[in-house]
Every structure is written in C-alpha cells, then in structure tokens.
C-alpha cells in the first residue's frame, strides 16, 4: 500500500515535471530571446541562451578580433584569429597562461573520426542585451499628441507622449478600467432589478437577455460597427468602451448570485425604512463581493486582452490599446525577434505578475463563474 503510494507520487512528479517544463520552456525562450544580441537571435543553429561571440582587442593595432577554442599541443586553448590565409588561420594564443603570446598557423579543418571538423570553435560568452527593452519601448514614436479630442467647442490639446508603448499602456488602462467599472455598475443594477424587484415585463426582458447570451459576438459586430460609424465614433475611445459596457452575461451571473442572498436580510432593511436603492447599496452589494470580484476579474482580463474589436474600430496609433499596439509593432519589426520578444515580455509580464499575486482569488473566480455560467 505504502509502496504503491510512493511509486504513484514519483510517477506523478515525473509527469507533472515534464508537463510543467513544457509550459515554461516557451516562456523562458521568450525571455532568453528578448535578451539576445541581434547576431545571437539569428544565429544558426539557434541557441537557447543569449550568447555572443567573444572578441579581443589587439593591443598593437587596436583591431577587434574574434576568439576561438582550439587544440594546442593536445590542450584546449583560447586563441584570437589574426587572419585567414590559404585554408589556414593565423592565431594568437591567449589562454592557458603558459601557452599564451604564441602565434601559430593552424589548418581551418582537420580530419576527425566522422570526416572533416572545424579546428577553430567559436568562443562564446553569456551576454544579456538589456538595451533591447528600452529600444523596443522607444521603437514606435508618436507624431500626434495623446488624448487630444474635442467636445463641442471645447478642445483638449492633449499631452505629447513620444513613446508608443507608454500610450498603449495608458490607453488599455483607461479603457479597461472604465469598461470594468461600468459593466459592474450597470450589470449589478439590472441584476438587482431582475432578482429582487417585481415589475411588469420582468421575465420577458430577462428571457431576452438569456437568449442573446449565446449569440456570437461576430453577429453584432457588423451592425455595431455601422452604428458607430454613423455616430462618428470610429477611431475614438468611445468605440472601444461603449459596446462593452453592457453585458447580458454579467447581468445573468450577478442575478444568480443576488438570488442567493437571503430574503430576510432584505425584509429587515425594508422594515427599517430602506428603499430599493439602500437595499441594493447596503445589503446586496456588500454581500456579493465575491461575485463582483469574480466578474470584475474576468471583465478586466477580457477587456485588457481583447484584440478583434479594437482591430476593427481603431486606426490611429496614439489611441491603440496595448494588444493592438503590439500587433502594429510586429508589423514594423517582423524579423527582429529580439525586439519582438522584448515587447512580448513587456506585454505579458505585468499580467503574469498580477496573476501570481492574486491567483487564489482568480482560480476561485473561474470555478464560480464557470459553474454558474
């Protein structure tokens, strides 16, 4: 019995270890690439770690020479290649100390057990190119001011933000916070009406809400796009915010939760002279914190990560949310993988960090909304 348990645990750890490594390796590869020198990112065969070819400056003439490993008298020596001459290389030995300062001529290839092999093997060292991050951050430069808009005659001149990614972050933050708070507010109000108040047409309207939950988003996208264009809201923050502020799903989720709040509490409040607003504000909302938090987490994450809708309605670089910004960055630097990975880390990093801090909360939210939804 005990032996079976130990065996089982060992097997479980093995499988989980392999699985966990599979989950992490792409992410580590992303970080590793983000720190690579361009030469290392595009070296063939590719290497996992960010390494560069070591160099040595010749003190006599100031020339920068590549370093190699080479066998000298049966020992591994680090040599600088001075020049290549008729299939042979002239090298100067640097290490080990007792062989140093000797200048030799070695053939470029020699016969090994499996055919010809290179005599000189590149000497590489770890090199983290941190500059990839600021360079990617500054890569997109905005020409127009950020947050310049007009309401009627009043004109907001905006702020001059140069770095694209800063504007992308701010845009995402603004849109996501407004959408999350707005959706929580409107959904909880409506959910309260559906769950706790009686009025004619309640069940009919609620059925209408339910029926539209399964309508694919793409069905409403086209008419909403046409509507927003008619309202001249395309390429404005409104286009990203307004259609997402009202959610039938959120209303449904909160209604289910509000129904589970005991009626006695509400009756007691009513006897104390509370109107519906007080009941909503002081009884239902405080008791529904877990549900509100779960819905809030989901709306926040969903809005932060949304891509398709901003892609459709946004054009101006200075108004793009982060995901769209990363996409347009990819369009400009499609082959510069060290920059692309640095940008990806900058986009992914904060989300992963928030998740690691609040994960217990988050996973509970999944179960709550998954089971009830």
């Amino acid at each position, binding site marked *: 019995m005990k032996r079976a348990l130990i065996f089982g645990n060992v097997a479980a750890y093995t499988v989980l270890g392999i699985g966990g490594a599979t989950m992490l390796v792409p992410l580590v590869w992303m970080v590793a690439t983000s720190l690579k020198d361009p030469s290392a990112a595009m070296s063939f065969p590719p290497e996992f770690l960010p390494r560069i070819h070591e160099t040595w400056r010749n003190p006599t003439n100031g020339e920068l020479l590549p370093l190699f490993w080479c066998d000298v008298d049966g020992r591994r020596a680090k040599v600088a290649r001075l020049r290549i001459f008729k299939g042979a290389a002239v090298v100067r030995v640097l290490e080990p100390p007792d062989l140093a300062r000797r200048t030799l001529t070695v053939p470029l290839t020699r016969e090994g057990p499996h055919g010809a092999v290179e005599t000189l093997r590149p000497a590489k060292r770890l090199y983290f190119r941190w500059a990839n991050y600021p360079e990617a951050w500054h890569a997109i430069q905005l020409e127009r001011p950020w947050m310049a808009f007009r309401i009627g005659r009043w004109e907001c001149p905006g702020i001059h933000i140069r770095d694209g990614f800063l504007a992308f972050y701010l845009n995402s933050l603004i849109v996501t916070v407004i959408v999350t708070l707005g959706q929580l507010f409107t959904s909880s109000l409506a959910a309260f009406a559906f769950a706790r108040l009686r009025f004619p047409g309640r069940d009919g309207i609620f059925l209408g809400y339910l029926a539209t939950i399964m309508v694919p988003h793409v069905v409403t996208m086209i008419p909403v796009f046409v509507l927003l264009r008619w309202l001249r809201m395309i390429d404005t923050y409104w286009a990203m915010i307004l259609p997402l502020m009202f959610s039938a799903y959120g209303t449904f989720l909160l209604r*289910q939760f509000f129904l589970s709040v005991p009626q006695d509490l509400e009756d007691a409040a009513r006897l104390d002279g509370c109107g519906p607003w007080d009941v909503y504000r002081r009884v239902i909302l405080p008791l529904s914190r877990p549900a509100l938090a779960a819905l809030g987490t989901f709306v926040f994450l969903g809005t932060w990560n949304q891509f398709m809708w901003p892609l459709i309605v946004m054009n101006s670089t200075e108004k793009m949310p982060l995901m769209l910004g990363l996409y347009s960055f990819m369009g400009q630097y499609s082959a510069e993988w060290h920059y692309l990975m640095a940008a990806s880390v900058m986009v992914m990093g904060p*989300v992963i960090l928030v998740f690691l801090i609040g994960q217990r909360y988050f996973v509970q939210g999944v179960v709550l909304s998954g089971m009830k939804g």
Partner: protein
Amino acid sequence: MHDDQVRKEQPTIPSMAGGTRPRSKALRQWAAAYGFLLPNLVGFLVFTLVPVIAAMLLSFVRWDAISPWRQAQWVGLSNYVEILGFHRDPTTGALLPNDDRFWYYLYNTVYLMLGIPIGMALSLVTALLLNRPMRGVVLFRTVFFIPTVCSAVAVAVLWRWIYQPDYGLLNEALRLAGIENTPNWLGDPAWAKPALILMGLWVGVGGYNCVLYLAGLQNIPEEMYEAARLDGAGWWARLRHVTWPLLAPTTFFILVTSIISGFQGFFVSIHIMTAGGPAGSTTTLLYHIYQTAFVYHEMGRASALAMILFAIVLVLTLLNWRYGREAAQVMF
C-alpha cells in the same frame, strides 16, 4: 430551480402588500425597478438586440459599407444561396457547391476542434495529478495556469517565433532529436492547422478546463473511494467506475462549451500567425466573416455568414439543452 424558491418568498411585508393607495405605490415600485434596469437595458437594446435584428436584415442586402446606405440593394435570399447553394456543372452535370471556399473554411473550423478532445484528456490527466495530496502541487497548478492568463496576442507572437522554420525553438528541438526534414509549420498548408492546435493545447491544458475538472474532483466524496477500495478496486477500477462517471457532468459541460466557443475561437492566433493562410488553410468561419466584412467590405454577405454561424451555435445550444442531461447520464 433556485429562482422558483425565491420567487415564492417574494415580499410579504405589510406596507408593500396593501397600502392606502396601492396603485400609485405599485407604479412607483415599477418606476424604481425600471430605473435600475434602464442603463443596462438601453445598452442591451442598442448594442445587442437591435444589432442582432439588424444583422438578420443586413444578410438580405448587398452593401459595401463605404457607399451610402441608399445604395444598398435588397437581394432577398441570394446571399445565402451564394454561400450554401449548389449548382450543376453545365458540361459534366456534377453537383458543385456555389462557394467551395465556404465549405473548406467550415472544414478548417471543425478540423481545429480536434484539439478539444485531446485537450480535455490532457486536462483531466493534469487535474488527476494535481489533485493528489503531494508537496508542491500548488506550485504546479500555478505553472500550468500561467499560459491561460498570458495575453493571446503576445502568445501568438511568441509561437510565431517558436514555429520559425530556421531559427525557431521547435524545429531546433526536432533537429536535435535527429529529424532532418523539419516542417515549415506556419508556411505549409498541411502543417499550419496542427501548429495552431498544438499552440492551443499549450495555452489550454492547464487552464479553465483543468480548474473545472479539479473542482469536480474535489466534489467527489472521499467515502466513494473508500467504499471502492473495500470492494478491492484498483486505481484503474476506481478511475473507471467512480471518478469518470461522477465527473460526467463536468466533462459534458466542458465539451459543449468548448465546441460552441470553438466556432468562435482562434481569431487572434490566426490573424497574427498566419492571417488565414497559407492558401486559406487556416481560415475559419469566424476569420472568413472578419475578412468579408472588414477587409472586402461585403457587409451583406458577411452578415449572412454570421447568421449561418449563429444558426450552428444555436442548434448546438438547443441540442445541449434538450439532450444534455440525459446524454451525460447515458454516455458515461
């Protein structure tokens, strides 16, 4: 069920049941209720209900969205006929689809769903392992869940790099394993779909489905296993006859929601990694709708396509409601 219980317990407070002027009181209550409902209801009408109806109407229209609305033409069902209909080849007499791309894109959509059963099986195995009372299991749960919270756009950029034929991680791993003819993942019509599925598995295995399975496993009472042990059941018998049947509702829920969302998924990875190519081999129905509407500006045709997608999802949902519970009991 829950709703009914509460509805029966509706307010029995004297002041509400019968006041001095019941009618005006009731009116006030209704007004208050609609006050609560209004913000959401207006948004719901403007951004959901009216657009759904508008989409239905648009699907009978030919309109490019650039020219003014009065130039839209009412074409009746011809958008649908062009997409779904068949015609006879005049020379051979063979029955051919009017739009063979549509059927190909539908096939792509279904093909990409092959990842669902594989992913569910892997999620279940992961959940079973993560449910063991071992040290460090919480750490593994976190690690497995990380890809799910990563932004899909960044994940797609990362996997584009992993699938890069020469410098990418995957092909280098294959070369180290001794495979010479490494595929050009995203550039080869034969490999692009499996590549998307593989990426989807990486994202999804430890994600929501795994958490749902874990919750399901934790709801199985320990006594069940003890009883099975007393009957001499080994681990396989316990898995087969206790865990699996008791997880059936979870499995069914995951399966149905995955299929329904499968018709609407993969947009981000397709747009970033392949843009629907090569040769349309990763264009799904959803991506086709996006391109038709917002790249080619054929709003009517795109709406018709969207309605067809809607119909598919609707049928699946109704089947789920009608047969869901019974199927879950019979199947497992």
